[in-house]
């Protein structure tokens, strides 16, 4: 076996090689290197990852296939779902949820509505806050940076169950939050038991208390337009605040790591070009952080659509089902109502929602790779180079490894 650590050889001597020849040699060299590394170690590699593959397969992949089968069956929860007594019912469970017209459809629609508002608020806000926090604690001038980094990250390492319990105490009718706002002369709402939607409250302030006729129809998932437009309930806002509070720290860490990967040279260059602080943040730092932003938004989307433990520990869907989420509804439907097929179907619809949204978001973020002209940084009073700022994800201030050992 040839030594895998051999540095890529020097090109063979002889007459001057043509460009094409060089390219071929280069390809050959790379292939050889890969083959050399792989050939002897493939078996060992497989051996090493086998335990993980077996564990993942047994506890992740197989259960997913089982759940898929359950979502297509009439399994009642007794005995194996693969026993002869369980029948294939096709999309019946899905149809019941999406077009059934009954309680199942309405509950599912309500849970989607609740979670949609949760996602719509939590994801953008936590992304912006975590970015700002990261920029703040990345300042060299900031004193006690370590303290602030720890403080901001702290909520993320605390168990969500503990934080939920604390928040429920804080927001109880006579809790700390209401005492605090009472000092300001405001009568705080009964946070934990207020099913009114925020948008409904705002509309109510303008005298719109009951739905206009056009909004009373319920064409989609059994929930009327008026209720789709309710906004998150007062109780749901507790969870929204809590999610932003706890996850901003996690994502701050991601942004912080990315910020530290941006070389000081670039900042200096922009300083030389006369960019002010806002331009440096908005036109240099933020575009360079796009890969991280993609990660943060993706993780945020996935996490927020799957919100379960806070709801399970806290209000369990009450008041008036305004904190019901698909993940909790799936649990509730399966274990408490013994509708295993429907519970599994909810989980797969949720999965589809997450996948579609992630793909959409990927497309959106990818399309903006080309910097629109108006966003390009033009140094004032100079007509020469139009774009001095390198923009785009591949720009990483690391020397390209193409040259091999250097």
């Amino acid at each position: 076996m040839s030594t895998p650590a051999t540095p890529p050889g020097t090109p063979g001597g002889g007459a001057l090689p043509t460009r094409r020849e060089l390219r071929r040699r280069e390809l050959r060299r790379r292939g050889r290197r890969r083959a050399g590394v792989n050939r002897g170690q493939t078996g060992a590699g497989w051996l090493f990852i086998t335990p993980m593959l077996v564990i993942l397969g047994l506890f992740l992949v197989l259960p997913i296939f089982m759940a898929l089968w359950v979502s297509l069956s009439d399994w009642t929860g007794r005995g194996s779902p693969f026993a002869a007594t369980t029948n294939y019912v096709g999309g019946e469970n899905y149809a019941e949820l999406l077009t059934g017209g009954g309680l199942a459809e309405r509950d599912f629609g309500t849970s989607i509505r609740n979670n949609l508002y949760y996602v719509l608020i939590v994801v953008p806000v936590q992304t912006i806050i975590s970015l700002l926090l990261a920029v703040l604690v990345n300042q060299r001038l900031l004193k006690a940076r370590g303290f602030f980094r720890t403080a901001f990250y702290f909520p993320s390492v605390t168990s969500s169950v503990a934080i939920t319990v604390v928040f429920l105490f804080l927001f109880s009718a006579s809790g700390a939050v209401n005492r605090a706002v009472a000092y300001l002369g405001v009568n705080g709402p009964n946070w934990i038991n207020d099913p009114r939607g925020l948008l409904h409250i705002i509309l109510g302030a303008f005298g719109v208390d009951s739905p206009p006729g056009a909004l009373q129809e319920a064409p989609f998932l059994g929930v009327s337009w008026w209720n789709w437009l309710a906004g998150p309930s007062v109780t749901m806002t507790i969870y929204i605040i809590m999610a932003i509070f706890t996850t901003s720290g996690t994502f701050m860490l991601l942004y912080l790591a990315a910020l530290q990967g941006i070389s000081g040279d670039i900042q200096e260059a922009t300083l030389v070009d006369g960019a002010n602080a806002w331009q440096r943040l908005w036109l240099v730092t933020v575009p360079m952080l796009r890969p991280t932003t993609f990660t943060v938004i993706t993780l945020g989307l996935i996490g927020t659509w799957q919100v379960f433990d806070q709801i399970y520990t806290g209000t369990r869907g009450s008041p008036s089902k305004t904190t019901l989420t698909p993940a909790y509804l799936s649990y509730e439907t399966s274990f408490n109502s013994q509708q295993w097929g429907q519970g599994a179907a909810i989980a797969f619809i949720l999965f589809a929602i997450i996948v579609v949204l992630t793909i959409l978001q990927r497309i959106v973020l990818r399309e903006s790779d080309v910097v629109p002209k108006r966003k390009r940084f033009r140094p004032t009073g100079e007509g020469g180079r139009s774009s001095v700022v390198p923009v785009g994800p591949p720009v990483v201030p690391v020397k390209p490894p193409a040259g091999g050992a250097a």
Partner: protein
Amino acid sequence: MTQHRTFPSAGAGRRTPRSRAARLTVLLAAGGLALPALAACGGGSGFDDEGGEAGGDLEILIGSSGDAETAAVKDAVSAWSSEAGTGANVSVAADLVQQLSQGFASGNPPDVFYVSTDSFPGYAANGSLFPYGDQLEDVDDFYPTLSETFTFDDQLYCAPKDFSTLALVINTDAWSAAGLTEDDYPTTWEELRTVATTLTTGDQAGLAFGPEWQRIGTFMAQAGGHLVDDSLSADVDTPENLEALTYVKDLLTSGAAKFPSDVGSGWGGEAFGTGAAAMTIEGNWVIGALENDFPDINYVVVPLPEGPAGPGTLQFTNCWGIAADSPNQEAAVDLVQYLTSAEQQMTFATGFGVMPSIQSVAEEWKGEFPEQAAFLDGAESAQGVPPIEGIADVISDFNAQIEGLKSGDPQATLTSVQSTLEAVAP
């Protein structure tokens, strides 16, 4: 040499896509193979159980309310065990519903376990429960309303363990502070409204009860309403129920009655204990809770007031379920027979404050707990959770609407609950 090296490198170049495909194939094949394998295992174990050996130790799974209940059940089971010569082991479930579900799915459930009224219809319908009612010696001694709750397809599936009913709990200090006497204990809706209003002060609500059918259903019962009629068909949208909900809505809007969460409490007993409410509608469990958490509260338990149609309350119960997959059903039935005997039920009653599910010890129980007699007196007019598959979802949907009752439309609520209940109880 170059020639020699070219070959593997070219091969490696092609290999990447091929091996990726190969890997995928392997994974899919593994998945495909493992699925039937797992199915075979699941089916196999179920088959073994049915043909398995009879006898063996009993596994008992309970959802305990606390140490007192756990100790009482353990003592009773070990007494039976040494008498019958069959081993028995009591475990306390952290999450009863989930653990039972896992047991039923694996084909290896506990032999004897608590079953709540919420999950009873589902378990009975999917065949998880062994209907043993006809093997019990004195079935008629159970309160008929309790037996009805655990009857599915005209079969009594399991024996009621014990039960509780709702009554009116009154803070006697607040009562006399408001200038009221024993003669003023409310016996009609009008009197309840009057005393609740009298008792309402700046930081004390007259009456508090949870925003759920499990409390407000008492008013429906007193008005002559119910969830389902005698043939278990949905019968929610009735003038009786409307009268009850309208009365409750009036109580709430007048401020004389509040939901516990409106006064910063988790449930009626807590609102009552903290003094945020002078009266509450709760069941037998409130006695133990007040003793533990609020020992200084002076209170009295009186029957709920009568409505337009007379007295009415709700009852809550569990039953001793026996698994259809249990290999030792004979011993299990024997154990349940022992646990529901008059003597044992009185032991449980003194142990953790429940009411016996059999009528023959009613007088004995009242003699022992005269201050709680109001709870047992309610048994005659009590309604339970109807044994209908899917009823729990309908009730929780009803509860969601009751939470908004103060600003809601009672008629619209009843109409909507009627339609959802019709879907499961035509």
